[in-house]
């Protein structure tokens, strides 16, 4: 809350600075739409809260256009946005487009072409706002011709977080060396990760601390676990695009896919074997609970979504581990880093989302103004501090952001320098259906009802059936 208040005050200064520049333009351009109420729906993330509580109010002050942003849970956000766009009911003027759903939305022609909309209506084009200011993350929201359908509002990478205070304890170092025969340090390989996890689980218990060796985003009834496996663990083992052969849309090894191949099985075995070293809530944890567990000091290391990394490292009101958070790239199997650097693979998930305008919106022009306001350079730094997200190239160099970066052990720098090693979700228009087919098998593997091998054999068959059903296989 303090952070949001600070951001609010800071943004007032930013907007005052803007007043001499683009404020007059927004005032003038917004005049015909004064009194309009724009409805939006998005996932409740720190950047979403900043947009709803800070940017929306400033925009209303300038233009008289009210923005009502409904920040809700991930499931509800999808449910509401998709139902609205399918029914063409026009409830929402803008919706949150998560990177992995964009191919589905484009395929179903839900979204307004923003590039075209602005080009055909020069009066709506805000001076000083350029889509070229964005990082390459905006490319995920473009179609084949390069036209933009969503204005990025958050972007993160999923990093390896570790507790510096635990890893630097002299007694822990000595005990680790005695037990494993090598020095204690943040993991750069899977064996080391497992050793660290096992070690800290026992070490914490011996010390009477409520902490465990690793986080596991292993909810046995929520897609978060499938995402952790497919987007973080599997790629770091060298399994890309869910193991789907992108030419034939087959995922089983016998049909040319990789979902039940050696790398996939090694990855799932590794991941499920971490469960004894994870906090007891691991099997009921989505990304939010993983962030909260780490912030509460209940894990020594883990894969954590970037949207949580910054506040865990810097927000003393919500996090018990401020000042003790280390940030690194996650461990990878031999060869994966080289493949990622060459553009032939990736080491994890480049997460984030954009605001887009549904065709059903009844206030497209006013929403165009709002999206450009969101895209302005002036408030990107405050937004980055409040929400731990960066979508513009110049934001990295802002002094305020650099100060936070230092507190967050260089998370922003890591994102800038290594973002290219990460990738968004594969371009599957059938994303939801495919993931839904895999979910139960991942849940069963985590619950120990199936071996990882059985689970992946079943998952690939279920996924192949879906892809055949939907007409993707030749």
């Amino acid at each position, binding site marked *: 809350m303090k952070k949001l208040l600070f951001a609010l005050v800071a943004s007032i200064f930013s907007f005052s600075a803007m007043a001499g520049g683009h404020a007059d333009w927004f005032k003038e351009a917004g005049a015909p739409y004064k009194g309009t109420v724009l409805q939006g729906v998005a996932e409740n993330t720190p950047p979403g809260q900043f947009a709803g509580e800070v940017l929306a109010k400033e925009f209303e002050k300038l233009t008289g256009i009210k923005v009502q942003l409904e920040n809700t849970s991930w499931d509800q956000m999808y449910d509401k946005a998709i139902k609205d766009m399918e029914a063409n009911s026009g409830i929402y003027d803008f919706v949150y487009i998560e990177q992995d759903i964009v191919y589905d939305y484009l395929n179903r022609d839900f979204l307004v072409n923003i590039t075209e909309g602005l080009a055909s209506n020069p009066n709506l084009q805000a001076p000083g706002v350029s889509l070229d200011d964005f990082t390459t993350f905006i490319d995920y929201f473009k179609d084949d011709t390069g036209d933009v359908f969503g204005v990025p509002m958050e972007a993160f990478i999923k990093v390896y977080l570790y507790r510096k205070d635990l890893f630097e304890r002299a007694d822990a170092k000595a005990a680790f060396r005695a037990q494993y025969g090598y020095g204690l340090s943040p993991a750069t390989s899977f064996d080391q990760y497992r050793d660290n996890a096992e070690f800290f689980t026992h070490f914490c218990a011996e010390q009477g601390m409520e902490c465990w060796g690793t986080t596991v985003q292993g909810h046995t009834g929520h897609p978060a676990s499938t995402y952790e496996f497919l987007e973080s663990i599997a790629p770091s083992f060298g399994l890309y695009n869910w193991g789907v052969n992108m030419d034939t849309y087959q995922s089983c090894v016998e049909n040319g896919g990789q979902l039940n191949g050696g790398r996939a099985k090694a990855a799932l075995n590794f991941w499920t074997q971490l469960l004894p070293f994870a906090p007891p809530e691991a099997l009921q944890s989505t990304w939010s609970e993983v962030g909260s567990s780490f912030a509460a000091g209940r894990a020594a290391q883990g894969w954590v979504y970037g949207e949580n990394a910054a506040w865990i490292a810097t927000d003393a009101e919500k996090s018990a581990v401020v000042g003790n958070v280390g940030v690194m790239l996650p461990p990878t199997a031999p060869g994966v880093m080289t493949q990622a650097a060459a553009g032939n693979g990736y080491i994890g998930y480049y997460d984030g989302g954009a605001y887009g305008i549904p065709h059903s919106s009844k206030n497209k022009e006013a929403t165009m103004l709002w999206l450009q306001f969101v895209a302005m350079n002036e408030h990107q730094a405050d937004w980055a501090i409040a929400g731990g997200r960066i979508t513009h190239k110049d934001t990295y160099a802002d002094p305020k952001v650099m100060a936070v970066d230092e507190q967050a052990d260089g998370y922003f720098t890591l994102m800038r320098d290594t973002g290219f090693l990460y990738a968004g979700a594969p371009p599957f228009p059938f994303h939801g259906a495919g993931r839904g087919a895999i979910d139960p098998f991942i849940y069963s593997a985590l*619950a120990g009802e199936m071996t990882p091998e059985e689970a992946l054999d079943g998952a690939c068959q279920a996924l192949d059936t879906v892809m055949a059903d939907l007409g993707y296989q030749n």
Partner: protein
Amino acid sequence: MLSKNKTGWLLLSPTILILVLAGLVPFFYVLYVGFFQWNPLAVDPSLQFDGFASNYRRLIFDEIFLESIWRSIKFSVVTLSIELTLGFLLALSLLSSFPLKSFFRSVHTLPLVIAPIVVGSIFKLFTVQGLGPLPHILKDYFGYTLNYGLNAEQAFWMIVIMDVWHWTPFVTLTLLAGLSALPQDPYESAKIDGANNFQIFTYITIPMMVPVLIVVIFIRLMDSLKIVDEVWMLTGGGPGYATRFTGIHIWKEVFEKRYYGLGSAMSILYLYITIVICWVLYSVMVARGKNED
């Protein structure tokens, strides 16, 4: 006579209109869609007619769907039995006087006014491993590990407990209303004839309560067969398929995987099964009631 009828129809017309728009139109639409293969994520996202029974034929061999139905029926039978037994006992006890009776009745009724999704949240906060108090208490005092994210049996029974907590007050209140309205003459006659309490309960109270019991059983049966919200919040249908009741299964097929045609067929088939179960139960109860008369 004709003008009287006209006035009646006129007065009824808003209700009929609402029923048609909110009930019949969606029903026939779902029935219609159920005859098509339709998934907007498909290469061809339009409705594909694939024979009248193709979706239904597929469902007959769909083990996961059939298991979800069996799971839902099992859940309904278990919860209904517990809720009826507990509800009857509580209703009988509320007939007599005891200290703080009004307070107990008010507190006992509170769960009824809580939305199902909130009930799910309350139970989640109370029972989630590592953070909720219940697993700590069970572990520390009884050495029992509660982790329904891992244990399928625990997940099922946790939902049963949640449903019983939520809906027993409804059964209690309805039965209490029924018991309070029973005529006293048969009881007095039975006492004069020397009947003991058990005989009075078995031969007088239960038969006279049959109409109320039928109402309670049907309302709770239909409700429990379509349970979604609380389960969604507590387990999301997991671990694996352990708590994937038919309502959850249909939701996942329709809104996650976007199988609109197949999902519609599931809904229709499940509605049909629900009606058949209710009809069989009704016939049995009415027949038994007649025999006892």
